[in-house]
């Protein structure tokens, strides 16, 4: 996948935050357009061809949720990651209902933000739903709900299967603990304990033990990544 072509719109009124976002995104191969307020963001969003946009919740003149709603009304379906200092669930729900695709509460680690932008960018790139995911010698049959490694079947609990599927759908990219909790358990809070690590650890034992190479990697300070060696 050629990353150089991918264009992200960042709508953020705080200059320093905007610069940090742009910096993190550019380092990871995205091209970045900056909009400094809601109206500017709306204008750019309507004409530009972006894979993802990040939208600050609180913006002068036109707030982030209204920007997304207006864009959706005009048929612009660019995935939107809402960045907000308001973390309460009601607000999260309001943001997602307005057409936002993901929600991240400030302050956040830039790697967490990148992981989510990657996931959204990937979503806009792949429209077709696969029935078989292959990463290295791992095969996930989404239809029969069966996992094999080197042709040998591995037994997983339903939730473990969902977790592996989510990692596999985002193979090669970092997935944060909060993203796992959100997409696998449908829970919207940041885990304060290491329970997710331990849970992933068990899945890892089932998938990786006595294999020629590991697939599930822990990325320190961020989360996990499923990838096969080059």
């Amino acid at each position, binding site marked *: 996948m050629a990353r150089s072509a991918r264009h992200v719109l960042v709508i953020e009124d705080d200059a320093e935050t905007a610069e940090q976002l742009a910096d993190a995104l550019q380092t990871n191969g995205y091209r970045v357009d900056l909009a400094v307020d809601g109206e500017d963001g709306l204008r750019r969003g309507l004409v530009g061809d972006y894979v993802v946009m990040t939208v600050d919740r609180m913006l002068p003149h036109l707030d982030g949720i209204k920007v997304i709603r207006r864009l959706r009304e005009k048929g612009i379906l660019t995935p939107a990651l809402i960045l907000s200092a308001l973390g309460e669930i009601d607000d999260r729900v309001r943001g997602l209902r307005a057409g936002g695709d993901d929600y991240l509460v400030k302050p956040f680690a830039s790697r967490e933000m990148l992981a989510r932008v990657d996931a959204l960018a990937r979503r806009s790139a792949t429209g077709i739903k696969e029935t078989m995911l292959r990463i290295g010698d791992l095969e996930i049959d989404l239809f029969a709900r069966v996992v094999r490694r080197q042709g040998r079947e591995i037994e997983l609990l339903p939730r473990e299967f969902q977790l592996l599927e989510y990692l596999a759908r985002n193979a090669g990219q970092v997935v944060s603990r909060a993203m796992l909790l959100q997409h696998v358990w449908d829970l919207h809070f940041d885990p*304060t304990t290491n329970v997710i690590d331990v849970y992933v650890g068990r899945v890892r034992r089932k998938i990786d033990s006595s294999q020629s190479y590991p697939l599930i990697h822990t990325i320190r300070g961020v989360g996990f990544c499923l990838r096969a060696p080059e």
Partner: protein
Amino acid sequence: MLLSKTFRSSTLKIAFLYVIVFSGAIFGVLGYVYWSTVTYVDEILDHSIKTETAVLLETFSTAGRGGLISLIDQRSNDKFFDDWVYLLTDASLVYVAGNLKSWPAAQKTDQARFEFIPADWHRDPTAPSLLRATHEVLPDGYHLLLGRRVHDLARFRDKIIVSLAWVAGLFLILAAAAGISTSRRSVSRIEAINATSRKIIETGLRGRVPMRGTGDEWDGLAQNLNSMLERIEDLVESNRQVSDNVAHDLRTPLTRVRGRLERAYNRQLNVDQYHELIGDVIADLDEILRTFSSLLRITQIEARDRKAGFRILDLTGIAREVAELFDPSAEENGLTLQLAASDRVNVIGDRDLLFDATSNLVDNAINHGGCNGPVTLAVAHGDDGAILSVADRGPGIPVEERKNVLRRFYRLEASRNSPGSGLGLSLVAAVANLHGARIEMADNSPGLRIELQFPILDVTATGMPSQEPN
């Protein structure tokens, strides 16, 4: 002081207003009783005179004058007709028969009904008797006078007036006394509350409204005010503790970070050392941010609109998911996590929050519950509502510490050095409070058993949307 307050009190004003209104009503009722009784007695008198007149006239028409005279004589001597006077005269008013000896001097003959005091007839020698009389002119020109003493009626009337006056007077005195004593009572109770309020304004939240142990509404009010003060004092106290703890728990790592950066600033380090230092600093800051978000989250939950976004949820389903999520953690700690929940148990709530709270309880049990035995997560129908409980076999929490552990940043001495923010149970408490659930801690002998007791589910009253697990 108290007396002057009593007279200014609104209760007394209202009491007097009532006295006036009720006095009016009482006088109305008594007046009616008086009027109707007197009229009734009066009518009976008139009626008896009319009847007796008819009897005499009838006798005259059947037995003639002789028969009438003999009847009059007979009546005059009859004890039963003691109160009656009879007089039969000829056309020129000369006495013919009867116990009255002469026509009353002042009386004209053209009146049919009149009242008079006879000069020569007294039933009671000490008092002159008033008579009510009728006068008939017989067909032969003779005059018949028939009268009855009305003295009893007058006495009766006087008696009624006197007793009514007594009743009214007594009532007024009683009402005034009751009014004053009621107002004095409420004024003194209000004064007690006022005094407590002034004391609190001047010296702080220590004061309490005195109770009299009568169990009346004033005691009820005093008790509620006292509970309110208790709660406010608790909140102020926990607020104070939070600021102390925020200062401690956030300042300590911040100082550490600052120290690290300062040392790095003053020293020459190589790239790897810088890298390691920055990594450590980020980890420290992440820890601070996490504490900060937890604190914020608790505050947000506490400030949240009750029941906004609540749905009907299956508590058993949530417990099952939590148990499944924590199974590896328990295993890693050498424990088993048992789930004792089978039936669907409905509660109204927020899934994220209940999941988070349950996770915190289970996490505490696994990490602080020792490794002596299983951790049990149970969901059951209680007497009142759903009960979710987490029990471990660890050291437990001493009874006197049980209230404290729900406070923010509070940590038992024993666990001060193990990882954790001291916010887990505060979050559980905030979530429980939002759901109207009670937290009970009990001895699991050995270990701790912590329960969330949910209120009775009232589905019909809420009209909550249901969220079925799929």
